[in-house]
């Protein structure tokens, strides 16, 4: 059975960038900061593409935000997604609003699976997928991973980690949980959020990038979706965390032991 897959793509600060709070606490210093697709969302896009390669179907990518998010949508289209949706909103969002806007997209697109990153690496909230599943009354499988390592043969063969049954009615999802690895079976349609070890995302090829420019991206004003857009998680100010000071370099193992034993008293 062909699958319709809806994948979310958030524009976030590059994890390699140095992030710090502005002195007045009103935001972060954005000078010299680069932006890219949330790394977890890259993994969600990759997984959806592998599912499509196996089962057939369509991969629709969606982003919520300002016009700049078009860059990340194009990046997902260049990886191979079929078309994009950009829900335009220039103000602050929170996971509750994100999930409500996504619910409206789901109502229009009717996907079999919605795939999101488990967390966005800017806000690190880890909520949007669970809230979306709750709103839809769908099963959820969060923190999707797989048992095979990222160096395994299954990964080299680009097999999907999420195992969708041939009839398209159910999927087995392996999850990373405290204390081990859990497997759940979910009835479709369902919401899956992905963890880091589900797959290694592909790089976009040059022809992929060229093709992406011609793929359809529909812009939808957030205000047209009938969702209350006032955030209920409000960031009042940002602070710098306490910084650790660099300590000393010790000459050898003997000195290390003495310091830990006599000075720090931890051994």
């Amino acid at each position, binding site marked *: 059975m062909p699958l319709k897959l809806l994948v979310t793509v958030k524009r976030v600060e590059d994890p390699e960038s140095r992030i710090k709070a502005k002195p007045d606490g009103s935001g972060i210093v954005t000078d010299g900061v680069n932006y890219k697709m949330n790394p977890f969302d890259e993994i969600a896009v990759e997984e959806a593409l592998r599912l499509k390669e196996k089962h057939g179907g369509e991969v629709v990518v969606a982003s919520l935000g300002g016009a700049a998010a078009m860059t990340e949508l194009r990046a997902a289209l260049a990886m191979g997604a079929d078309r994009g949706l950009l829900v335009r909103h220039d103000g602050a969002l929170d996971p509750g609003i994100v999930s409500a806007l996504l619910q409206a997209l789901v109502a229009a697109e009717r996907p079999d699976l919605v795939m999101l990153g488990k967390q966005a690496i800017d806000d690190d909230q880890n909520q949007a997928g*669970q809230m979306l599943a*709750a709103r839809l009354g769908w099963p959820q499988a969060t923190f999707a991973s797989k048992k095979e390592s990222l160096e395994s043969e299954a990964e080299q063969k680009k097999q999907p980690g999420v195992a969708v049954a041939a009839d398209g009615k159910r999927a087995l999802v392996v999850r*990373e*949980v405290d204390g081990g690895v859990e497997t759940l*079976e*979910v009835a479709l349609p369902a919401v899956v959020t992905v963890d880091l070890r589900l797959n290694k995302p592909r790089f976009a090829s040059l022809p992929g990038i060229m093709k992406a420019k011609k793929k359809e991206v529909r812009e939808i004003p957030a205000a047209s979706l009938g969702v209350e857009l006032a955030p209920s998680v409000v960031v*009042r100010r*940002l602070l710098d965390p306490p910084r650790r000071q660099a300590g000393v*370099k010790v000459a050898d*193992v003997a000195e290390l032991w003495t310091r830990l034993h006599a000075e720090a008293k931890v051994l």
Partner: protein
Amino acid sequence: MSNVLVIAEQSRGTLRKATLSALTAAREVARRTGGGVSALVLGSGAGAAAEELAAHGVPVRLADAPVLAHPLAEAHAPVVAEAARAAGASWVVTAATSYGKDLLPRAAVALGAAVATEVLAIAGDGGEILLRRPMWAGNVIAEVELRTAVKAFSVRPTEFAPAARAPGGSVTPMAVAVDAASLGTRFVELQEVKSERPELTDARVVVAGGRGTKGDFGPLSALADDLGAAVGASRAAVDAGWVPNDWQVGQTGKVVAPDLYVAAGISGAIQHVAGMKGAKVIVAINKDADAPIFQIADYGLVADLFQAVPALRERLKAG
């Protein structure tokens, strides 16, 4: 009412220690709002965990039913919502474990609650409660306000001391109305990582390795066993399949705050540091004198870990 409900976490009747940190955070909220604290234990055969939690001076609702045997968010969330209403709770608190993070946002939707994840501290004056939580891998701490009538948050266990035992607790059973046939989620299996070592998040000492181990965790494991320590790892080591995913420390793994953290063959990427910078003493062993880990280590040793770690074990034995 501004009562606070704590969602407990248990497995086969054993209460998870992180719940006691959530209880401490819940009491801090209640002290400010003037409300009462109660707790909810969900599971099947979870009575012993409920008794254990009650022994910390808190009234416990026990939702015990076969349909709750596995920690499925779809089954547990409606029970949480019902218990929160019954308790007149305007705050719902749990530990930021994989169970808590999976469950809380789903339950929050039923309660119309906004959620803050991984709360580190509770701030604000008078009636106003602000929650401090990390963003951008802990590079920034945000002070957030939740504007919904019912509010929810998960607690980073290392930031709140576990509640102590106290009298005055009780256990009251609660009827469970979840219909197993209505669930779209089915538990298949749990492959547990079994270990004789202490839990990573509870251990007094953590010995962690990264890509620099080249896949050989032998020396680090031996040192960990000498010290009664847990073993941790960087994402690079876990991704390579060298060690279980459960060992990952960092932004997207476990957050630890031991007395001593030994990082060997780990470069000190910000995402790793996010999970261990709360350690009292950090030791770094790395071949590269310029590795960023040395910027946060209390004691840095520029050395090959395959020589330094066995030598440290020798020195320990000599006493």
